[in-house]
Structures are given as structure tokens and as C-alpha cells.
């Protein structure tokens, strides 16, 4: 299984209050605040909306693997999950209407699945902006208890 470690930058609670309206910033300039998590992207593409990597958690239990991602504000129609061989691609795109313009947010993440996933039984749900993908393990993959006779 290949997953690239994502370093989550912790935001300090001690940060100063932000003004609701900062006179030097227009509404659009405020947008790059999203890049607090991806500060390098902002420098590379000021004012642009690049494709962003989604952070993901992976868990398992005896029967399934689980993948969790945060996609607040996305409707389920705006989230596209595709399985290509053993790679799971999650894409989320949302257009947001501003007063006289439209901008789109595009997030993506590809994950290599471990062996032994019943790929035809993958399911997904969203709850309060958290996407959970359930990947059932194939029978062979499940933990077995061997009794000593």
C-alpha cells in the first residue's frame, strides 16, 4: 500500500483575531486564506485556484478498510469516486457563485488500495462534510481464528 505522508500543519489557537473586514483586502484576496494549509501553493499561483490534494485517513477492522476525507460544503453529486485497477481516485469539484463571478474549487486524491479489496462492493457516504468510503475485504483477506484441535 502506498500512501504519501501528509504533514498537517497545526494552526495555533493563539493566532490573533482576524477582522471580519480588513480594509486592505477585497473579498477575493481573502480567498487565499484556504492556503493556510498549502502556503506554498499561494506563492506559486496567487489568485489562482489550483487543484488541491485532499488529506485522507485510512482505517481497517476485521471486515473492511475505511477511508475518510473532509469535503465540507460538497454535495454528493459533486464528489466523484473512481476505481482504476487498484487505484482509487476521489475528485470533488464545486462552483461557487460570487456576486458577479463564479469560481471553482477542485480537490483530488489518489490512493493505492491494499490487496484483497472486494472492488465491486465499495460504498461511500457523506455526513456533515466528511466522506467515508467503505472497502470490504475479500473473504481470503479477513482475519480467521484457527482453533487448535
Amino acid at each position: 500500500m502506498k500512501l504519501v505522508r501528509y504533514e498537517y500543519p497545526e494552526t495555533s489557537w493563539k493566532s490573533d483575531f482576524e477582522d471580519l473586514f480588513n480594509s486592505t483586502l477585497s473579498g477575493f484576496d481573502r480567498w487565499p486564506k484556504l492556503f493556510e494549509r498549502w502556503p506554498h501553493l499561494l506563492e506559486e499561483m496567487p489568485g489562482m485556484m489550483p487543484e488541491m490534494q485532499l488529506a485522507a485517513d485510512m482505517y481497517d477492522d476485521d471486515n473492511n478498510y475505511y477511508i475518510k476525507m473532509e469535503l465540507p460544503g460538497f454535495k454528493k453529486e459533486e464528489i466523484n469516486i473512481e476505481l482504476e485497477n487498484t487505484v482509487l481516485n476521489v475528485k470533488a469539484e464545486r462552483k461557487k457563485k460570487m456576486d458577479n463571478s463564479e469560481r471553482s474549487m477542485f480537490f483530488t486524491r489518489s490512493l493505492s488500495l491494499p490487496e484483497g479489496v472486494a472492488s465491486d462492493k465499495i460504498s461511500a457516504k457523506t455526513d456533515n462534510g466528511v466522506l467515508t468510503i467503505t472497502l470490504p475485504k475479500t473473504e481470503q483477506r479477513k482475519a480467521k481464528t484457527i482453533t487448535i484441535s
Partner: protein
Amino acid sequence: MTTELQRKEQQNPATREEQERFRKPYYEVEEHADAHHVFVYMPGVDKKATEISVDHDILTIIGHRTDRTPETWRPIHRELSDRNFRLQLRLNVAIDENKIAAKADAGVVTVTLPVAEEAKPRSIPVS
């Protein structure tokens, strides 16, 4: 969906800060003539777990994570933070605090801050 907001003047945020560290959510602000809208992105927070308060000129939005990972799930790889969210904004525009409203949908809390009557733009006829 609209939650009545309560002023929580008695609450002392300092003691909470000592107990808990927060993650600052991503947010957007939209300006309109009669109201400002703040969109706060707090995934994994149910609307019932959202607290909104105004203390003097500070608007505080706290979201407690309600998505619990079942105990039987074994972590293989973790990137997401479990922390609760907190956003504090200084209301540097005149807001009618008694009419602040909020709703939540899909992990996004929308706070509507009505512009105070005296701060609304007026046209002054030339006599």
C-alpha cells in the same frame, strides 16, 4: 435549520483555551448591503455541536467534532486532525447583534450578520 443565537457573555474563553487547542477553520465572508455572511467550513461538526457567541466586538464560532471513529477501527494511516474548530472574528462593522442568525449544512456553518440600521447606506436627497 436556523438556530437562535444566544449571547454568552458570562463565558470566559481564557479557561477554555487552557483546556483545549483548536484548529482554525477555513472561512469566507460575503458582503451585502443589508447583511454580511460568514461561511465557516467545519467538517465533522453537527449543527447541534456549533456554538456561536458575540462578546463585545468579537464573534466566536466553535465547532465540536461529532464524527466519532468507531473504536473497532484500527488506524493505518492518519492525516486528518481531530481537533475542534474555533474561529474568532472582530466585528469591525456595525452589526445588529440581536438578529444574528446561523444555519448549518454539510459541514458548513453560515452565519448571517445583519448590518445595523445606522450603518446601512442611505441616499440623501438634495433639496
